[in-house]
């Protein structure tokens, strides 16, 4: 088991590192890989180093972080809800975040991270609360409650848009997911949250595996079912909330990447947790690189690219009977 985790994780890390260097090379100013390596290690031409270290690298790291968080959140929720069609946004948390961000945009606020986190926290609390039935977290209610709260917040967003349409474009772009307006100062917090989530998610991953076979069976094998449900809902919720707050609603990553990873590694969450994070990171880094370079000098929201790439990939896996 440990050998399989290391093999898959190391392979993905290697591919991610190569993609990162490739991503840093391309842009409106092409930079050769040698210069990229020099810039990353503190040497080379100052102008090149400035482009790499201050513009491209933070953005690439954000793509890695957000992609990893969304994909891990999706993998966890699919296992928790025993439903491979679940994605992080089905919990209603992203709609809550979007509502918070929309309010802030309408109010003319500059920072969107805090309001969207507040919206996400509110949605998470409501969905969690309405999912509790007879002192247990009912996963069917979680799914239904998430869909309902998602619709409710979406209606509120549409209401705000109808009333104050002047900022409509800004809101729509935010909702499509965007990595072009990032605050590099937030990166360490995102990394810390991701690391904490990965460690907790890996430690209890076998219990989550057992839970996918049924709650009664998991209980009978000594799993503290209520603790595991609450823990993984919170982990998935926090990861979704942070990623949406940082970059808007980037679709398909949390649905498709866990599917593809599962088809390759099998469903064991002990492997799925690190590999979903790394594969999600890779997918969003590649998508964002395309989003910012294909239509130079303008760029398109990364959510458009994740959908355009992700859906055919997903259909391919589905046709091969592996998803």
């Amino acid at each position, binding site marked *: 088991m440990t050998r399989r985790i290391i093999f898959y994780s190391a392979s993905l890390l290697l591919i991610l590192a190569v993609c990162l260097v490739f991503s840093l090379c391309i842009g409106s100013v092409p930079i050769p890989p040698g210069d990229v390596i020099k810039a990353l290690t503190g040497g080379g031409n100052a102008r090149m180093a400035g482009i790499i270290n201050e513009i491209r690298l933070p953005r690439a790291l954000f793509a890695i972080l957000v992609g990893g968080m969304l994909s891990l959140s999706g993998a966890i929720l699919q296992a928790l809800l025993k*439903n491979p069609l679940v994605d992080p946004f089905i919990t209603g948390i992203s709609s809550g975040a979007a509502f918070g961000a929309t309010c802030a945009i309408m109010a003319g606020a500059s920072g969107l991270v805090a309001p969207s986190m507040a919206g996400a926290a509110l949605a998470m609390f409501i969905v969690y609360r309405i999912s509790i039935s007879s002192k247990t977290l009912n996963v069917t209610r979680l799914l239904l409650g998430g869909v309902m709260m998602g619709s409710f917040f979406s209606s509120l967003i549409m209401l705000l848009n109808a009333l104050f349409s002047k900022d409509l474009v800004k809101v729509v772009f935010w909702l499509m997911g965007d990595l072009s307006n990032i605050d590099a100062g937030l990166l360490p917090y995102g990394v810390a949250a991701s690391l904490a989530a990965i460690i907790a998610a890996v430690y209890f991953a076998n219990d989550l595996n057992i839970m996918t076979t049924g709650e009664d069976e998991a209980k*009978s094998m000594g799993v503290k079912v209520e603790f595991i449900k609450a823990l993984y809902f919170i982990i998935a919720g926090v990861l979704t909330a942070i990623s949406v707050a940082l970059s808007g609603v980037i679709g398909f990553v949390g649905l498709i990447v866990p599917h593809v990873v599962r088809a390759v590694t099998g469903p064991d969450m002990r492997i799925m947790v690190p590999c979903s994070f790394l594969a999600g990171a890779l997918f969003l880094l590649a998508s964002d690189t395309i989003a910012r370079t294909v239509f130079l000098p303008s760029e398109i929201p990364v959510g458009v690219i994740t959908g355009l790439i992700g859906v055919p990939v997903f259909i391919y896996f589905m046709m091969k009977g592996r998803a």
Partner: protein
Amino acid sequence: MNYFEAKNVGFSYGRGGFSIKNINFAMEPGETIAVIGPNGAGKSTLMKILARLTPGYSGEIFAEGKNIKAMDSAALARVISYIPQSSEHGFDFTVEEIVSMGRRPYTGPDGKLKPVDIAAVKGAIEEIGIYEKRKAKYNELSGGEKRMVLIARAMAQATPVIFMDEPMTYLDIHHQSMLMEAIVKMNNSGKSVLLISHGINLASEYSSRVAVMKGGEFAAFGTAKECVTENIIRDVYGFENFDIADNPRTGKPNVFIGPGNNPESAAPKIAEL
């Protein structure tokens, strides 16, 4: 010391709802108790209560002399294993992975298998005769094979008490006989088995004692000879046209049912179609 004991156990689904009442019994090491009774008698509910899967019961339940209410989840899972009526999985775990899950009470949350755990998993897989299927995906197995995998998982869990809810469901005659032999082996090694069965004759043949449930209570509890009687079968199942005779090979009572035992549900009248 008894492995398992229920003292005056009761449970109710809300005010005026279905209830389980006055359940008292103890299981001796190495015996199999079969719970029989018609649908809706409360058999599965009772089993879930006894395995602490359904909270909110009254009375006391003891496993290895300890009140199960006060036991840690893993400690309880080292005494009682539970095989549900059916188990459908959303994800493609292999047979080996499913059976390995049975070692959870010994490994802790990370599920890392030590040599003793690997040996227990391998032993259970071989014992139950599914070695060739160990790398197969659980979801791609037949109903009977799935059932055998769940039994292997319970064997890997290595508990002195095993609960089985309708273990014969989906099993062909070959698998039924394999299962019954496995239960006999479990009993011979000192394990106690509590099983729910719709098959009165199977319960009579293979159990040490039979509990007959009706309306949430034990209508009868004792040996097959004491419980599989004309009066009890007539009272519990409402049958009229049946015979009871001893199996000449085992001496255990078997029920033989004739037609016309369910006049209300028999051939619908044309006007109702």
